[in-house]
Every structure is written in C-alpha cells, then in structure tokens.
C-alpha cells in the first residue's frame, strides 16, 4: 500500500461521522437519479409503446388534420391567409381512392409488417339514458390483426365476432364504464351523422390503458360502418405496422410522396407528447443534477473544512518530504473514496427503491392507466449514476486538495504559536 493510500485511508476512516455524512449525500443523489429515471422513463416508454401499438406506426389519411392554412402560412408568413366570411368549404375528398393497390404495394414492402384499412367517423352512442360522442372505426379483423395489436387489449378476445355477427361493436372500456355497461351482449344504439339509428350488440371491451382512446373508441365491422355512414366500399385511413418503429418518419414521407395522401408517423402523431416528455426529462435531469451538485458541494465543503483543519498535518507532511502532488492525491483520494462508496451505496439504495416502487399496487389514472408504476429498470441508469458520482466527487475534492498542496509550511509553523 502506498503511503498516499495509507494516509488517505487513515484520515478518512478516523473521521467517521464526516465521511459518513458526505458518503450518504452522494448515495442519496445517486439513488434519486436511479429511481427517478426508472419512473420517468418507464412511464414514457410505456406510453409510447402502447400509443404506437394502438395507433399504428404510420397512419395514411385523406388529409392532414391540421387546418389547411398551415402550409401557406409556413411558406409565406402569417399574414397571407385571411378568413373569408360566409364562404362554405368545398366538398372535401374523404376517401382513399384505389386503396387496394396501396394494400398490395405495401404488403410486399419488406419493411412493412402489416397494413389494414379503416373507415373512421364521428357518431353518438346511446345506452339507456346516456349519450356519448364517439369516434367510430370500421375494421377488417383479419387485416387489422396484421397491423395492430388490438387483440391484446380485448377482454374477451372477440374480435372475430365482428365478422360472424356484423351487428357487433367493441367498446372502449372507459366508454363502457361511462355508459354503465358491465357485460357483453348489451344492446346499444348508434346515431349516425345523418341521424340514422342503428341498434348493435356489444361483443367485447377494449382496454389499452390510454385513457383518451378507451374513452371514445368504438370498433365496427368495416361493412357495417360503411352502411351506417353511407359510404359503401369506402376507406379513409390505412394503418401500417413496421418492423422497425424508428423507420416510421422516413417511410411515412415516402408513402406521402407515392400515394398523394397524408401519411403520418407515430412520432408526428405524438409530437406533443414527445415534446412534453422532453421537457419532463429536462426537469428530471435538472432535479437530479441539482441533487448531485448539492452532494458534490457536500464533499467540497467537507474537503475544504478538512484541509483547513489539517493545515498543520499538511505542513508537517511537506516538511518531512511529501511533495505537492502527493498532498493533492492524499486529499483527492479521500474525495474519490467517498464518491465511490457513496455511489455503490446509491446503486444499492436505487435498486431497493426500484424494488419497492415495483411492489406498489395502486390505480394510476391519468393519460395512462396502470396498476402501480411502470418502471424502466435499465442498468444504464446505474452505470451513469455511478460515473456521475465519481466525476462529481473528483471535481469537488480537486480544488480543496490542490489548495492543500499549495500551503506553505513555514506560514503554518510561524502562525501556530
């Protein structure tokens, strides 16, 4: 053992309380980092995964849902579009023409896992005395399976009931709860935009965990919805599932070009959420950074105090032949040891906190619904937490240690009379 390690260890372990306090400071910082990252990223990853799976990786629509002036404004500036009062919107094209060709073309594309047609529309559902506005989706169950994971979220796995009984519907679980429907087989009434009334039977419930979807969505057989909306053989949406979700942006762009319709990637569909997540991550990062800074200041402070208290020891060490850089190392080593042990403890605490969080069972109802926290328990948070702590404790102890090494022993010998 080198004399530096010997002296550093002695100085550190003989002042247990100080060492313990600063070690705990680091441990708390690291544990906070690990557990907060797990919760935040767990939530975000869960949300994104669910949302992507349910809403498709790419959605091909007749037109972008944003207002039409957007493109003009983007190209020519804000002043260019004026509202013309009294004008009536011209008849909009509202179907995808030749969708069967697209189906064939993209089914053959090796990057595409599946593609399915939708007819969507707004309607009103009525059960007993209750009415709700709903977004209706007509699907072809066989194709739907290739492009979405809708099956996974059905309580009774009755997707095929839409085929065997064309007058079946599948309700979002939250919608069903709102209406007071607890079991399948109930009859509901759908009011079409033109005022037609249709009685259908509830075949299943759909529970994705994404509240906004579960509260509004109703699945129909494609033919049934075409009849209700009076749009025979029409389709206004294609959903696409890809092998690699990260390809979505590029492929969506290609599809837009090829088809002339608007293809929206999941990234674009969820850009608001992704933006919010970015903010969330920034905030988490800032909080954790603040905690780490505080614990670094803890080390800094204690090292500064130690150096002040140890002036005489530093003076005598230099007098008996220790060089400046050896003095620096003696003190930096103490900081690093504190950081190292603190980081290890922090990883342990972080793990225990994750275990505890994972064991919690309670209903989370927000933009997603789960029982307890969804954690992202990636080992990388442990690695990062550990490295951050080591870096911070090195930086925090370096300056005080350097100061220590610059003490002039004669000044100490003179002044301590």
């Amino acid at each position, binding site marked *: *053992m*080198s*004399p530096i390690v*010997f*002296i550093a260890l*002695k*100085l550190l372990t*003989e*002042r247990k309380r100080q060492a313990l306090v600063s070690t705990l400071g680091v441990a708390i910082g690291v544990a906070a980092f690990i557990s907060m990252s797990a919760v935040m990223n767990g939530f975000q990853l869960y949300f994104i995964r669910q949302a992507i799976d349910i809403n498709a990786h790419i959605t091909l629509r007749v037109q972008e849902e944003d207002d039409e002036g957007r493109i003009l404004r983007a190209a020519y500036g804000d002043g260019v579009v004026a509202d013309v009062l009294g004008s009536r919107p011209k008849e909009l094209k509202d179907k995808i023409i030749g969708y069967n060709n697209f189906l064939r073309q993209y089914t053959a594309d090796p990057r595409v896992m599946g593609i399915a047609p939708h007819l969507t529309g707004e309607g009103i559902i009525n059960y007993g005395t209750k009415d709700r506005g709903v977004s209706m989706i007509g699907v072809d169950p066989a194709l739907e399976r290739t492009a979405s994971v809708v099956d996974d979220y059905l309580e009774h796995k009755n997707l095929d009931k839409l085929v065997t009984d064309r007058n079946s519907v599948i309700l979002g679980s939250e919608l069903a709860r709102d209406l007071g429907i607890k079991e399948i087989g109930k009859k509901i009434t759908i009011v079409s935009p033109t005022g037609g009334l249709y009685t259908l039977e509830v075949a299943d419930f759909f529970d994705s965990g994404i509240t906004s979807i579960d509260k509004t969505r109703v699945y129909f057989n494609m033919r049934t919805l075409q009849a209700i909306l009076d749009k025979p053989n029409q389709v206004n949406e294609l959903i696409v599932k890809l092998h690699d979700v990260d390809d979505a942006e590029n492929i969506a762009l290609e599809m837009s070009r090829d088809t002339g319709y608007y293809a929206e990637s999941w990234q674009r569909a969820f850009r608001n959420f992704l933006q919010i997540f970015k903010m969330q991550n920034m905030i988490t990062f800032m909080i954790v950074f603040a905690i780490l800074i505080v614990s670094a200041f803890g080390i800094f402070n204690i090292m500064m105090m130690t150096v002040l208290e140890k002036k*005489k*020891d530093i*003076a*005598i*060490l*230099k*007098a*008996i*032949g*220790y*060089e*400046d850089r*050896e003095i620096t190392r003696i003190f930096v080593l103490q900081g690093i040891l504190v950081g190292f042990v603190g980081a290890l403890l922090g990883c342990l605490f972080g793990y225990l906190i994750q275990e505890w969080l994972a064991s919690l069972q309670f209903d989370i109802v927000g933009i997603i619904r789960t029982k307890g926290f969804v954690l992202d328990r990636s080992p990388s948070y442990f690695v990062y937490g550990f490295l951050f702590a080591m870096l911070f404790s090195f930086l925090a102890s370096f300056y005080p240690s350097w100061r220590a090494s610059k003490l002039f*022993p*004669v000044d100490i*010998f*003179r002044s*301590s*009379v």
Partner: protein
Amino acid sequence: MSVILEGRDLRKSIGDNPILNGISIAVEKGDFTSIVGSSGSGKSSLMYVLGLLDSPTSGEVYVDGRKVDFTDSKSLSDIRNRKIGFVFQFHYLIAELTASENVIVPMLKHGIKRPEAKDRSFALLSELGLKGKEGRKPYQLSGGEQQRVAIARALANDPEIVMADEPTGNLDSKNSALVMDVFLELNEKGRAILMITHEPELAERTKKVHEIKDGLIIGGEEAAPGG
C-alpha cells in the same frame, strides 16, 4: 571534520523587511549547535532556510557539499525526507494516527516497506522511553511524550542532522530536561543537532552556541555567552 550542512552569506527579506542579513554557518558531523537570540532576531527564519523549508533571497546552502537548488522542489523534498529531521515547539503529530504510525509516515515516503517501518518505529519509540505506548493516539500521550514521538519521527529516516526550533518551549522543566537528555544522547551517538532555544541553561549544555541579533550572527563559535 566533515561539514554536513552549510549556509553561506544567507540573506532573506520579506517585503522591505530584512530578516537575515548575511549569515554564514556550518554544521559538522557530531556537532551540537545551539542558536540563541532575542525574539524576532531571525532564529526560526534561519532554520527554515537551512532546513530547505524556505528559500533565501540570496546566498547558498550546501548539503553534504552539494549546492542546493531551491527551484527544484522534488530534490528539496527528497533532502528533507532523507537527511534532515525536524522538531518544532509543537509536536505536529497527526491526530488520526497512532504514535507508531506517525513515526512511519516519513519512512513510507522514503520507500521503506510497512512491516520494516513498523519494527523500526517500535525500536525508535522504545529508545525514547515510549515502549508500550506505540499504539496510542497523540491525545492519549502527555506533552513530553508527544514531543518524544515527534523526535522519533524526526529520526525515522536516520537523518544526518536534526533541527529543532525551541523543542522544549512548550514543556515544563521536568519534560524539558528529559527532551534535552534525549538530544544529548543522540549527539553522543554521533548525530549532528542544530537547536534553537531561548533558554541559556540549555544552550550551555551544547557544544557550540551562535547568538543572532537582527539577522546577523554576533556571537562567535567559541564565545558561548553565559547569559
């Protein structure tokens, strides 16, 4: 006799304040030299320069006949570690270390392995009458014992010269006498000692006495003033 340490025309000023005004002094093997003088005369300043803890404004220091390069901090550290032992008015023991560990610290720097260093520290402490107290922390020792541990530390690397700045300044007369006896004994065994003291009765017992006034040696080697 061979000269171990020599200062030639040492001058030192701090700011406009002249502290050493041209001191030449030599310490030979077997010397027991004391430096006396009134407070503020420059005794400590001289020892810091001779002990390579501080650099002179002008003049040279020779150790074993070799001129010291005051800009080479590594070699200054080396010489201090191997050839000079320091004892101050206060013991400057490291509170976290035991008596034996305090003595080991300079040896480790010298490159002596721990088991050997430990044996040596025990031997030194026992020579200084501290047998059985090797494992005590400084606060568990009396003032005189602490100072003897400090002397053991000064002897750790078997230096050619021990420099002591009022080593008894903080001790009662009994402990003072004990420490003085230790120095006399060390000197008898051939070790050179340079001791600063206020006390004429201690200076009388040394072989050479230099009196310093205003940064100059005024008393010659043989002219030991009786007080």
